[in-house]
């Protein structure tokens, strides 16, 4: 049987896996409004979903390479910033993902009720 430290570590790892699955949905939803990296991180953190630079930027690059996001470098406050927003395909995929998320939530609700 795992001891206290072991079970805390297991919980942290599983928590990370759970969060990882939700991050893509959260990022796509937030990018219905155009943001750059830091403001996106702040918006997610304000809503309770902290994400570090090492996780966010590779995710944004991957989503952009998949055609779900478009980005543009622009000068703002005398500094060059890269702004991201959803592409039309990104909107479509986001709507499908949100339906899927609803479905998963309902299924999980039923499973938890039965348990």
């Amino acid at each position, binding site marked *: 049987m795992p001891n206290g430290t072991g079970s805390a570590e297991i919980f942290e790892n599983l928590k990370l896996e759970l969060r990882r699955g939700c991050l893509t949905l959260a990022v796509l939803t937030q990018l219905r409004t155009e943001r750059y990296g830091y403001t996106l991180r702040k918006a997610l953190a304000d809503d309770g979903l902290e994400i570090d630079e090492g996780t966010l930027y590779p995710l944004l690059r991957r989503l952009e390479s998949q055609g779900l996001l478009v980005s543009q470098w622009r000068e703002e406050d005398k500094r060059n910033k*890269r702004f991201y927003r959803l592409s039309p395909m990104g909107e479509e995929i986001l709507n499908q993902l949100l339906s899927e998320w609803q479905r998963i939530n309902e299924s999980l609700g039923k499973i938890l009720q039965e348990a």
Partner: protein
Amino acid sequence: MSKPANPLELVDRYLQSVRFWLPKTQRQDEILAELGEDLRSQIDAREEELTRPLSTDEVAEILKRCGPPMVVAARLGPNSHLIGPTLFPIYWFVLKMVLFWILVPVFVFIVGPATLASTHGDWGAALGNTIGALWSGLFIAAGIITLIFAILERTQHFAAVQCKWDPLKLPPVRQEPHERKPSLARSVSEVLFGLFGLMWLLLIPNYPALILGPAHTFLKAGELWHIFYAPIVGLSVYALLRSGLTLARPDLTWLQPAGELLQGVLTLVLLNFILKAAGHMPNAEWQPFVALTDAAKGSRQYIGVAAMVNASILISLICAWVGICIASVVRTWQLLKYIRKRAFGEGQQATAQLR
């Protein structure tokens, strides 16, 4: 390292370190620009909260939270691996096969004896040379195999091969030798041939033609056969008893591999003694296995024949020794698997009972 006069210079130093660890791709500058912008935005936000510029130590805190440059570069850079998860199981299998099942036996059974011969029986020098050559061989082989698989990974050749997989072409379920009962036909044959073999052995002293054929007119059994005849008969009796027990108790699936392993070990011991004794015989009259009869001693032709037969038997015994060694290693491994499986099964039962 000196503290920078300007706290923001720390950010530039940090980005320089991250750049060092990032792969040199077209996107390197973009990645660093984004990271730099993020860090400066964090500094701006903190300065707005505190209504004053940040000190060098406070900027350092922000960078510490971001993480060590090497780690950040690994996360921000493209995912790269030498051999991916699809190919890795095959790579590992091929590596084990080549290194442990081909190279090591080749060095032990071929290169080793050859080195021993070249060092004129100096075991220390032979062992040192063989181990040295084996060590280099293992590294070179591992390097070549890794390189081949790394190339396969990059050419994506294997992905096409994987797509052609067909469930209908899977091999049938294989049972471990110790899991299946020995076939009746095999057990009966073993007993019959064992019996036949033992009878033949027992008749040889009185009827040498049974082993020497027409050559028994000028050849007879050599000195070694007289010394080792009894152990050879004993081994045949053991083999016959083992076969009989396997026939009588086919449910004891462990009996066959265990019995064959013991037989292999006993045979190896006997062969060792025979080969050692053959090696110690005087060169002048080296006739360990077959010797000339008194009538044929003067004939040069028969001397030549006797020499050839002795050499042939020696080579055959050496080959048998090598083969039995390999078979014994395989049987030991099978037995250990059986014992581990039994122990695991008993462990599971005990855990189930505890619950």
